[in-house]
């Protein structure tokens, strides 16, 4: 092993008062992987994302990004390294038009560094670059959609806008907190190729999902959390065959459905 994993999480533990939201969770993510994290509600998935991205300080445990420790760094420093996240509850800048939403991440030190560009010049100003990114992520360029206020956009576009905000930083890892939730089947169907393209672009993805069928189409590894503990990790097939997972999801129709599907 010469290359250290993209992300290495070692015994991540987070206690909220007496409740252990995360209990010694360890895992690795390699470059170009799509790791799916699943688990019942309240199993600590979002807390894990918050801990990795520095939005919540861990009680104990260590996190390494490309062999470099990032434990305890402030959130903006971690994002600056290229570990970006989307929010489960979308957090756009509601009072700004969609393309202006991207001007803000494009103004960040990382975007200035990775873009090799400081606004203006051949690529155009931040507005132009913002619209380019929006087009890439599925906003129709010549329509009025990129120019609409974020407050008037439907959920599907807001989810894309969350991803676009990450892309503006030229990220190495994107932690997607339920990008498929709240979307219709057809919207999800159009998001899946997008995720696949991000992977082809060399971006490592960690996806928290409840939509198991779509997740298993894209993820090459899956980790199951339950009550803050890691149950199993493996390929989608292995995970679904595991009796512990069946127990955690006992009675959940979706699993039955996916099991028969797999």
């Amino acid at each position, binding site marked *: 092993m010469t290359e250290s994993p993209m992300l290495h999480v070692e015994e991540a533990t987070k206690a909220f008062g007496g409740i252990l939201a995360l209990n010694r969770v360890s895992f690795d993510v390699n470059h170009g992987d799509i790791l799916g994290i699943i688990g019942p509600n309240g199993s600590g998935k979002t807390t894990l994302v918050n801990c990795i*991205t520095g*939005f919540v300080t861990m009680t104990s445990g260590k996190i390494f990004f490309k062999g470099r420790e990032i434990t305890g760094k*402030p*959130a*903006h*420093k971690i*994002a*600056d390294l290229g570990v*970006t*996240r989307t*929010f489960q509850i979308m*957090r*756009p*800048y*509601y*009072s*700004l038009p969609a393309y*202006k939403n991207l*001007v*803000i*991440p*494009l*103004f*960040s*030190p*990382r*975007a200035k560094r990775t873009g090799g560009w400081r*606004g203006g010049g051949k690529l155009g*100003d*931040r*507005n132009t670059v913002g619209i380019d990114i929006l087009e890439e992520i599925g906003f129709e360029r010549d329509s009025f959609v990129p120019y609409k206020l974020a407050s008037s956009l439907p959920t599907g576009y807001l989810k894309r806008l969350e991803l676009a*905000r*990450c892309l*503006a*930083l030229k990220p190495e890892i994107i932690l997607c907190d339920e990008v498929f939730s709240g979307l219709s089947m057809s919207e999800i169907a159009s998001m899946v190729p997008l995720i696949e393209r991000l992977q082809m672009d060399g971006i490592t993805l960690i996806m928290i999902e409840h939509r198991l069928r779509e997740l298993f189409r894209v993820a090459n590894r899956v980790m199951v959390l339950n009550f803050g503990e890691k149950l199993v990790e493996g390929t989608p097939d292995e995970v679904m065959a595991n009796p512990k997972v069946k127990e955690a999801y006992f009675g959940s129709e979706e699993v039955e459905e996916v099991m028969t599907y797999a």
Partner: protein
Amino acid sequence: MASEERRKERLDRGIKVRSDGIYALLSWRELGYLVLPRLVLIVGLLLLPLVMPGLYWQRVISNVCLYALLALSFDFLAHYVGLVSLGGALFIGTGAYIAALLNKHLGLSIILTIPIASVSGAAICTLLLLPCLPLRGVYFAIVSLMYPLAAMRIIEALNIFGGTDGIMGVDSFPYSWVEQYFVIVMVILFLFGLRRLVNMDIGLVFRGVKDNDQAVRASGMSITYYKAVAVFIASTIGCLAGACLTHIYMFSGISLFALDFSILPIAATVIGGGGTLAGPDIGCFILVPISELLREFGTLRIAFYAIILMAFIVFKSEGLMVYGQRKYHQFERWVKI
């Protein structure tokens, strides 16, 4: 029933100087349409000292402009950065004391004291407010209100900077017209400067901090840094007003930390319309002269004042400027349903 079958339709005129980097003005008429309100404001401000009868009212103009600067800084912080600051008196007091001390003890001339007091005062205010910057909304308001009160008591208790007597005999502006035009030009400069700033890319970051600070953090930017930059800009404006004040009244004392300087800009913002930057200035041009006119009623003027404010909050809570902008930029017509 005929009256119920129609409704008012509002349409944007949609005249802009620029859209997507292309200059979009099509005619002199459109140019005039956009320039007119700005020109009225600028020319009106510049003419004010000439049309004012007597020294007393000219002094009132200077006063109005100082409050207008404070209101600008309040509006910028509250509506573009999301920090509701009641620290107007802190900015005024810090700027005033620094200018007075530089002038009295180091003998610096007024050309030097005002810029030095603005920038160093802003640095001090920013450092003082730095620990409170993680706070938001009303919590920041409460803490920022504490600062001027504490400063007043500290100066009183330690008997520093002249104690309760203050610092007398500060140099005045050489001529009264210099004084008036200086503050008027400053109001115009900062008004249009801030309007430009909030629409620049860094201004969008400020607005992002107000709208959604977690998303700014997730974009790899420190919110505390940008809040500090914004507080520095706002307190520069406030300290400038303070420095001018001390030279206008040739005096600096603990009365400059009075709550008026924190409260009046907010009242002016309510009347003028928050988030417009020009609105709070207009609010100052209404409120400050009214309070001068009502001076003969003594303390009863507070009651008049309260009635005016209440009437605005109840009947025109959007503020004059927002209302005016809407009427100017849209046309209305009745359409049949």
